[in-house]
């Protein structure tokens, strides 16, 4: 089991970057000393953060120059506001200007920062545009999802716009997160306090089995580092043939699992014997158990 010092989930955004990149290599861009705080939070009498919850910069990964960003979930639930989003979009823009080996996005976010509503939505859309632009310029963009706030809303879509995603079991990925789903559709739709149901629906294991995530790894900084190094070489072509292939894959998913009411039904339909034991398995055992059933398109 992971000790607290090595847990990805327990680490702050900066600590995650230190732990994933080569030791001592991270150089922050437009860091907190610039005091680029949100101009909008004061109107709601809310505290600000000097980096607006987004840490961006450059570093080395296995000796190769990369750009990396990490969202601080502890600040406003990692919600994307005007400044936060602009930092992420700017980093992806920088990625196109020099021969970086890739961009790592350590995502820990509920999505749009509702306290900045409209500016937040536009910020997320600009990040999405910037991810696709970097990819079109052949720069690999890899998402690492394993923080306590998950990766939801527009950032969930952004994560799936990347070349690849590595998730820990603790990580969650979706569009409408459990709290918002319960608040808007009622506890019958999803009981956000039912942790088992939440993790079956959004968690790393289910996402990996379904093919929404490319790697299922330990909650450990080194594991994320290894996965990042591996996935930087897993660039996906952003072209019509690749999209048509993915389209067929997504169509098959609906054919196979469209009738399932719960993730457990998906696992059973995918051919997993005794799906109830999956949540209790360690990542390595889990990967072995679902090897045949997994529906990744690679």
């Amino acid at each position: 089991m992971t000790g607290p010092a090595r847990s990805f989930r327990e680490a702050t955004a900066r600590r995650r970057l230190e732990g994933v990149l080569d030791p001592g290599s991270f150089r922050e861009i437009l860091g907190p000393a610039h005091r680029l705080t949100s101009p909008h939070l004061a109107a709601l009498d809310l505290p600000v953060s000097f980096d607006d919850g987004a840490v961006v910069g450059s570093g080395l990964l296995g000796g190769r120059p990369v750009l990396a960003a990490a969202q601080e979930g502890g600040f406003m639930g990692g919600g994307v506001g005007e400044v936060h989003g602009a930092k992420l979009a700017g980093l992806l823009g920088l990625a196109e200007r020099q021969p970086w080996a890739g961009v790592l996005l350590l995502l820990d976010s509920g999505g749009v920062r509702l306290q900045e509503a409209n500016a937040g939505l536009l910020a997320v859309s600009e990040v999405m545009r910037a991810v696709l632009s970097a990819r079109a310029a052949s720069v690999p963009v890899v998402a690492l999802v394993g923080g306590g706030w998950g990766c939801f809303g527009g950032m969930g879509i952004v994560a799936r716009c990347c070349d690849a995603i590595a998730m820990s079991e603790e990580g969650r990925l979706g569009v409408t997160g459990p709290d918002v789903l319960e608040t808007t559709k009622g506890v019958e739709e999803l009981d956000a306090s039912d942790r088992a149901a939440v993790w079956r629906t959004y968690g790393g294991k289910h996402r990996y089995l379904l093919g929404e995530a490319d790697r299922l790894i330990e909650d450990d900084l080194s594991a994320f580092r290894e996965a990042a190094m591996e996935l930087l070489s897993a660039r996906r072509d952003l072209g019509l043939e690749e999209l048509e292939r993915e389209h067929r894959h997504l169509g098959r998913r609906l054919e196979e699992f469209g009738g399932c009411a719960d993730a457990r039904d998906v696992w059973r339909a995918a051919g997993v014997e005794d799906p109830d034991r999956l949540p209790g398995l360690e990542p390595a055992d889990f990967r072995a158990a679902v090897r045949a059933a997994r529906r990744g398109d690679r």
Partner: protein
Amino acid sequence: MERLSFDFACRGDPAPLLAPILVGVVASGNLEVLVEGGAPPGRCRLEVLTSARGFGEIWEAVLRDFATRHSLSGLAVSVNDAGATPAVVSLRLDQAVDEYLRRP
């Protein structure tokens, strides 16, 4: 939000001019501390933006204590606070100075 500013005499060694450091997270019950050099010699400047109003005297006591404890001349400290207890504030301040001094 309440903004508080303090400027204490600090007659200790001059703080080295190193890269600024940030520790902590602005989450409920927590705070972030930014430490930089660049305050005038013999002074320690501290600025706090806090969501908990009305605790000016406690902040003064905690920060004065901190300035005395470290007695580093020329240190500039900025804080974004989301309702941390004095104990957590002291801890974070000490942590920040510690990390600042460990910078290459």
